[in-house]
Every structure is written in C-alpha cells, then in structure tokens.
C-alpha cells in the first residue's frame, strides 16, 4: 500500500510480481501442449506399433536359406519399420506447429511469449527429446526382438559390439530425430498442415527417389545431398560404399536443420501471427 500511496494515481493496480516468462516455463508448456492432444498419443502409438511390428514381420518372413547374411542385412531388415515410423513422427512434428495456426491457438501462444523464437526452440527441443527417448528405446527393442527371431539363421548372432552395429542403430535413432525436427521446421515455415505434409512427403521423401530416374547426370550427383537423403550413410553398418561419409552425413543433417530453422526463425519474427 505504501507503494500505491507514493504514485500520482493512488488506485493504480500492481500485477503479481512472482510470475515470470522463462525458458523452462516454455518447455513445460510445450510438454503440456504435446501430451494434452489425443492425436499425439494415436500417432506415436502407430509409430511404435509400425516400427516394432513391421520389424518383427519382416524378420519372420526373411527366408532362412538367405544366401546373404551379416550384420548389415540384419540391421537393414530389423530397422525397416523404423524408417516407416519416421513418416508418422514427421507428420506429428508438422502438426505440433501447424495445428496451432489452423486452430488459432498460436495467438494465445505468441501473446504469452511475444519474442516468438523461444517458442520455436521450445517446441523443437521438447518434440526432439520425446522422439529421441521413444525411438531410442524402439530401435534397440526392435533390434533385440529381430535378433531373437533371426537366431540360428545367417542373419542371427549379430551383437551390438560388432563393428558398426551400435553406430548404425544410433544412426537410425538420429535419423528419426533429424526428420522429426526437419518436419517441425517445415511446419513452422509453411504454417499450413496440408501444405507442410504434402511438401514433406512429396519433396523430402519422394522427389529424391524419383529424381534418379531423370535423364540428367548432375541430378544423381546432387540427390545424396537432398535433405531426406543425407542421413543415409549413418544408417549403414558398413558405410564404405556410400557417397557421403558418416561425418559428411552428420554435417549435412546439421546444414539442413540450420537452413530450415534459420528460415523458420526469420519468418516467425517477420510475419504477423
């Protein structure tokens, strides 16, 4: 009351001083937002079921008299489901941003955090961490499950300590986190669900595959550097035959994320909400 008495307007209202906008608060907020939507649970459940289930089905149907074997093929077969699950994870990543625009909740979000960029970082950090933990677990679960199925065949008996196996499995985990973050960034740039999902599936997933059919040589020189292709090297137990080295693969994933989030950040600052 003494404070009020000293001002020229004695009735002036003083808001509570103990509430502060903080980075930790934004992370908790994004965590609450992510798990308070039914779509998060459904999509992540699908991703988990597909990554484990498809791995198991493929592993059981590989003929036991396979002429080829070894750790490389074993990892490729077991991780087929993880690659498919990345589509679910990417779509959910897009929706965490575009869902806010389509429903208008972005206005509430940006009113609470008017500097805006911190919201993008918080979204990416929370979703990236959730995907990393969930699919870190799924990659190893699926690997051990498929190894149990493969036991006694040419694809069995692969251990984490075998050359390149652990690195390839961590590569799958990194790949799915990278694609999740890339998709979320695309969502932040395009702000529209259908447009972002279309762009992700068409341009990031399918175009680099189709492009190899084009009659120009330079296209096949460029496609390994496409955003959807750069993680390929880190998925290989033996990356010797890959265009990009493992190091280059990491570098290019970093470059594409910097480009995407740089553009997303600039647009987020400049555009009206």
């Amino acid at each position, binding site marked *: 009351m003494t404070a009020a008495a000293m001002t020229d307007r004695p009735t002036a209202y003083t808001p509570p001083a103990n509430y502060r906008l903080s980075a930790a608060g934004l992370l908790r907020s994004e965590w609450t937002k992510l798990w308070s939507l039914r779509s998060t649970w459904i999509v992540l459940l699908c991703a988990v079921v597909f990554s484990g289930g498809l791995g198991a089905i493929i592993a059981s149907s590989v003929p036991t008299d396979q002429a080829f074997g070894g750790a490389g093929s074993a990892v490729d077969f077991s991780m087929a489901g993880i690659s498919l699950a990345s589509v679910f994870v990417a779509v959910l990543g897009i929706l965490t941003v575009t869902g806010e625009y389509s429903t208008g909740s972005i*206005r509430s979000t940006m009113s609470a955090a008017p500097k805006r960029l911190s919201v993008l970082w918080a979204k990416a950090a929370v979703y990236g961490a959730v995907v990393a933990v969930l699919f870190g677990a799924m990659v190893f679960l699926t690997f051990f499950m498929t190894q149990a199925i493969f036991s006694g065949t040419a694809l069995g008996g692969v251990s984490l300590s075998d050359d390149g196996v652990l690195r390839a499995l961590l590569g799958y985990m990194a790949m799915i986190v990278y694609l999740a973050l890339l998709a979320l960034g695309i969502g932040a740039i395009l702000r529209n669900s259908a447009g972002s999902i279309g762009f992700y599936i068409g341009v990031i997933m399918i175009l680099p595959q189709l492009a190899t059919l084009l009659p120009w040589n330079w296209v096949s020189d460029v496609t390994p550097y496409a955003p959807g292709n750069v993680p390929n090297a880190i998925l290989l137990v033996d990356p010797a035959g890959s265009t990009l080295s493992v190091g280059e693969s990491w570098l290019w994933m970093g470059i594409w994320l910097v480009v995407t989030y740089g553009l997303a950040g600039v647009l987020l600052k400049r555009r009206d909400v």
Partner: protein
Amino acid sequence: MKARFARRSVLGMIEIEHLTKRYGKKTAVDDLTFAVKPGVVTGFLGPNGAGKSTTMRAIVGLDAPTSGLARVNGKHYSEFRSPLTEVGALLEAKSVHAGRSAYKHLLALARTHGIPKRRVTEVIDLVGLHEVAGKRVGGFSLGMGQRLGIAVALLGDPAVLILDEPVNGLDPDGVKWIRLLLKGLAAEGRTVFLSSHLMSELAQTAEHLIVIGQGRLLADTTVDAFVTGSGQTRVRVVSPDAAQLAERLAGPGITVSSPERGVLEVTGTEAAVVGQTAAAHGLVLHELRTDRGSLEDAFMQLTADAVEYRQTSEGANR
C-alpha cells in the same frame, strides 16, 4: 526504488501513436493516435472493418505496425518479462486448439510464466467453466469459448485487459456478468479496453470512448460527452394546426420538417418554446415531446462516412 515508482506513473497506460497498418494495398489502420487510461473502462467503438481488431493485435505484438507505435506502460509488448501479468488479451474467441481441454489450454499458458495450477482453477471458476473444464474445446459453444478467452485474459491477473468484442455469443446473463466483472476490474485500478460495434453495449459498460472508422480516429471522449455532443435533440409535435405552427416557429437556427401530415419535427429549439408559441397563437397541440438522439444515432451519424460495407440499396440485399 525511485525509478520504479517513476515507471509506475504510466502503469497500465496504453499508448497508440501514429499507428498505421496496411495489409497489401488495404489500409486497416490509418495514423491512429490515442491513449487508454487505467481505472476506467474504455470502449473502442467502430463499425465492422474499422480497424479495432488490428489495433488490438498490434498492442499485443501479433501484428507488426507498418509505421507508428503501440505501447503499454511505455514499452513495446515484446519487451515485457512477464507479458501475461502486464496485459491480458481476448482477441478472438477460440484461440484454442479444438482438441485440447479448457483446463489444459490454460495450464499450458500458465506454465510459460510459472503460474500455479491453483490460479488456473481460480480463473476457470471465475468464468463459470468448472463443469466443462476437462472437455475438449472443440465442442464448446461460442459463449463458452468467450468465457474461456476471458479466463485466458485474466490468468496472469494483469494490469491491462484488452478484450475484442467480449460479449459476442454470450447470453443475457453472461452479458450482465461481464459488465459487472469489467467495471470491478477497472475499479481496482486496472486498464480495461474493450471493443464493440454496438454503441448501446459500450454505453452500459464504458466511461470513456474511442471511436474509429476506416482506421481513423473519429472521437476520443467520455460516453456522456459523446452522447450530448453529437446526439441531436428534436421536438416532435402533433397538431391539427401543424402548417400554421410551422410558420410561427420559423426562425434563425431552427429547422422544421414534417415527416407526415399533422406531425412536425423541430430542431434548434426546446419543447417549452414550441408550447408557448402554440399557446400564444391559440394553436391546438395533441402531442409535444422531446426526442433525445439515441446513442446509436450519435454513432451512426459520426461513422456515416466511415462505414466500409454499406448496402448500396435495399435491392442489393440478396
């Protein structure tokens, strides 16, 4: 400490300075300047498309002005360390994800500022949503959406409240409730700035009035002054001797018109004068009445040139 109190002297003041906002070629707000003071409810009046929402969006930093400034407490909104305690805004009802519950929506916003769950429950009770707080917002009626929007605005217990058309979709009880709520909040020394396209609505809630049309300031005045200043007072006379009376009344500054046979509408004088004139000439009066211009008339008159979407003719109304 002294510096803190110096800053407090503008606490709650909303200042709009030469604000201009263009969307492409369309100018939504055109060189608008006004201030909103704490302690009273200030109404923001204008026809649809006048630029009310754009101005309010600029205050909370959602729209960047093409030129000019929108400040609260002398600061741009994005400079606040705790935006939700400085300004609470209801901009559009249902600025909420349809798949999220009202409680989780409020909780997510509360967490950005470290606002406790207790406060979330408090605002839910305050706006009367406790029974549906756990339900998905997608199924809410317009009125429930408005109540949730008001809960969001009140969440940080802010010094300044900005509400865009808050009574839209509310039932009569809700309208009455929000009027009392806003007056109470203003009485606590808060700044309350609410927009409406209905003069009658603001007249019952607001003390001060900012009127805009086509993005330009038309009036910045008290509600009382607005009504007495621009509302025309008319004397209506019903008389079998209307024609004679009209002749007798004629004089400088007085206009007499006859909307129908035996009826006169006189402006520029008072009922007493008309009565005396009639008596002095032995003219019979059946009715003598003073019509004060309604608030709506005053508003319509002021914004007549500034209405953007006007029916060109009755026939154009399909």
